[in-house]
Each structure stands twice: as structure tokens, then as C-alpha cells.
């Protein structure tokens, strides 16, 4: 076998029998999957103990394309599903891969509680500022004045600043990159894997078919150039100052990297304190099989 016949590093992670995927030309989700795959390779994570959970939406379709134990759950509920998975089998590395609408609108309640509890989950949130799969409706992240199918005269709600939200709720690792920042993104994902607790990585990504097109912001490539031009790397920036506007600057970087005891450590400590020797570790919730 020639040393030249090296496979695309992402290939072993894909369900190649399901290619090509459904994402549009210029959509950034596939780019994020490349970064995810690189992070998995670099961090040498045991793929057998990795589980990926997603919700509904364009980004939610990632679960169906990766060759891992993957769960395509209901809209907004990837995080509680993942919580159950992690608590039943603490040895699992559980990643949630979902979109901004899924995670912060219908899933918002679960997002803040998982961050509060500091459950050991890694959330990859692809933020294309819109509900893409359903045809381009306003999302809680849609910047003011943007045209969407449900705000045809321009969005006027204040948008969520997701890093600020999850930091306030208690996340221990919060970063934002765009799909232009492929190397940094892969590195961030790798760092999140080393972190115990609730990690949240927001990735600003183009939705050329809906968000960009309706707002006359060009295509995917134009958007990537915009990300390159307008992004400013500010590690440790106060998350309250990283809100997004439609054409303004995009603050990216690693904003939060702190340590707090994760949920399972807290439960363990409490139970041991209260029950002493009577406490039975739940490490093996696995039921007997036939």
C-alpha cells in the first residue's frame, strides 16, 4: 500500500453509505464536522465510548451522518436525553451536536439546567442565526433587522448572546468560533473533551440558502470572507460584550475555561457524606441482558 493512498481523515467518521448529505452548497455544517473529526483524531478519544446526540434541524442531521453511537432525538431535547445516557453510563463521552434554534429556543430550558448542574456534556452549537430546516424562520439568535420568513419586515427581538447565557448558567468551558476558524475550532473541541463539566462551543455558520440569501448577504463564500474580515479573536473576553449584530464584528475565542465540580462528583460527594458506607455507587446501571 502506497503512502500516498491516505484517506480523507474525516472518512472513517462518516456513514459513507449515506453520502451525499442533505446540506446546501456553502452551508458550514459539514465544515464543523471536519473540525469535529480532527479533534477526535487529535485527542485520541476512544470512539467506542463516544455517543453523539442531536436534536432536530439541519445541524441535528449530523447524528445521522457520523459513524458513532448516535441518537437523533426530539426537537430541543438532545440535552436531557444525553443527560440520561451519561448518568446511566458515566464511562461514555457524550457530545451534543445541534443548532441554535434547537438548543436555545425549544431547548433553552434544558440548556440552562444542564449548565447549572454542570453535567459532563460537550455541546457543539452550530449557530446559523435562523431555523434553517423548516425554511428560514426567526430564531432567538437572529440579529435585529434581519429578514426571515416569520419576520418579513425585519426581526426586532433582541437576540440571545449564547456565550453569555451559558456562562451565567454555569458552563465551565465556553468558546465561539466561526466556520472560517477551522484550526481553532478543532482545538477548542479537543479542549472540551479534556474538560470535565458542561462545555459549550458556539460555531457561527452560514445558511446561504435562507439567512444569507434573504438578507442579501451573498453566498457561503461571501459569508466566510465576512467572518475572516470581521472576526476578532479575544480570548477571555467578557461574554456580556460578545453579542452579535447582522453585519458587525464577531468576537471569537475561548471565553470561559474554569473549574467547577461536575454533577456526578457533586452527587457522589453528597451521597457519601449522607450515607457513608451504605451508599452504593451507580457506576453500573446496566441491566441484565438476555
Amino acid at each position: 500500500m502506497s503512502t500516498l493512498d491516505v484517506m480523507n481523515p474525516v472518512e472513517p467518521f462518516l456513514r459513507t453509505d449515506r453520502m451525499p448529505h442533505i446540506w446546501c452548497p456553502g452551508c458550514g455544517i459539514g465544515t464543523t464536522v471536519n473540525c469535529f473529526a480532527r479533534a477526535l483524531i487529535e485527542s485520541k478519544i476512544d470512539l467506542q465510548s463516544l455517543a453523539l446526540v442531536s436534536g432536530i434541524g439541519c445541524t441535528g442531521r449530523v447524528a445521522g451522518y457520523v459513524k458513532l453511537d448516535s441518537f437523533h432525538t426530539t426537537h430541543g431535547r438532545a440535552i436531557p436525553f444525553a443527560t440520561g445516557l451519561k448518568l446511566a453510563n458515566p464511562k461514555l463521552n457524550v457530545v451534543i451536536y445541534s443548532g441554535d434554534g434547537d438548543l436555545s429556543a425549544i431547548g433553552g430550558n434544558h440548556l440552562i439546567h444542564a449548565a447549572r448542574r454542570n453535567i459532563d456534556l460537550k455541546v457543539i452549537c452550530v449557530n446559523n442565526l435562523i431555523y434553517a430546516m423548516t425554511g428560514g424562520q426567526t430564531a432567538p439568535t437572529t440579529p435585529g433587522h434581519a429578514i426571515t420568513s416569520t419576520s418579513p419586515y425585519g426581526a426586532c427581538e433582541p437576540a440571545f448572546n449564547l456565550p453569555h447565557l451559558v456562562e451565567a448558567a454555569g458552563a465551565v468551558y465556553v468558546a465561539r468560533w466561526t466556520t472560517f476558524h477551522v484550526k481553532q475550532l478543532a482545538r477548542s473541541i479537543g479542549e472540551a473533551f479534556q474538560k470535565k463539566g458542561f462545555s459549550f462551543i458556539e460555531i457561527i455558520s452560514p445558511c446561504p440558502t435562507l439567512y444569507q440569501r434573504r438578507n442579501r448577504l451573498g453566498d457561503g463564500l461571501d459569508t466566510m470572507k465576512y467572518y475572516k474580515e470581521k472576526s476578532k479573536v479575544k480570548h477571555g473576553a467578557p461574554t456580556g460584550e460578545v453579542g452579535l449584530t447582522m453585519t458587525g464584528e464577531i468576537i471569537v475565542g475561548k471565553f470561559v475555561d474554569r473549574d467547577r465540580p461536575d454533577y456526578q462528583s457533586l452527587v457522589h460527594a453528597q451521597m457519601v457524606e449522607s450515607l457513608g458506607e451504605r451508599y452504593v455507587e451507580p457506576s453500573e446501571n446496566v441491566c441484565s441482558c438476555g
Partner: protein
Amino acid sequence: MGSVLALPCGGLVVAKGRVSIVVERCKACGFCVEFCPTKVLALSSAFNAKGYHPPHVVAPEKCSGCDLCGMYCPDFAIYGQRLPAQKETAPAAPLPEVTRES
């Protein structure tokens, strides 16, 4: 990070690479063409089955195998790989150090 390495003897090695393109997956988004640091690629005038113009290599000697194209491609249609290192004889004058932001 750069695509040039400094040798202890003072010479420089330029990494060489090769690009592989899965033509049928390409949707001609243009990311690879734009973000290749050495402008190895351009969209071709050929069509794939879906009617897109996939990229082709226009400057193969400039490819360092950095695989940025592979990392950017949303359709998993292209990737770069480093070829085994080629030793170069000491150049007449040192090349300027090049650093690349990605």
C-alpha cells in the same frame, strides 16, 4: 504555523503535498479555492453529475499538503495529504520565513 521548516544546517525544506478531489460530492462552494494558502486550486469548467464545477489543481507544485482544503470542505469532497519529505540542497539565499494565519 508555516509550510516551511528550518533545518539545522541552515537550508529550508518546502513540504510537498497532494490534493485528492471526490468530484461527485462537490457543490462548488468555493471554500477550498479561496482558503488554500498557496492558491493551488481553481474551479474548473468541467461539470460533475449534479451540474457543479468542481475545483481542479492549477498549481500542484505549490501544494504543501496542509489539508486546509479538507478541513474547510463542507461536502467532504477534497483533502490534502503531505508527501514524504523531499530533501533539498542548500539554497543560494535563505528564503524568508513565512507564517500563516488560518
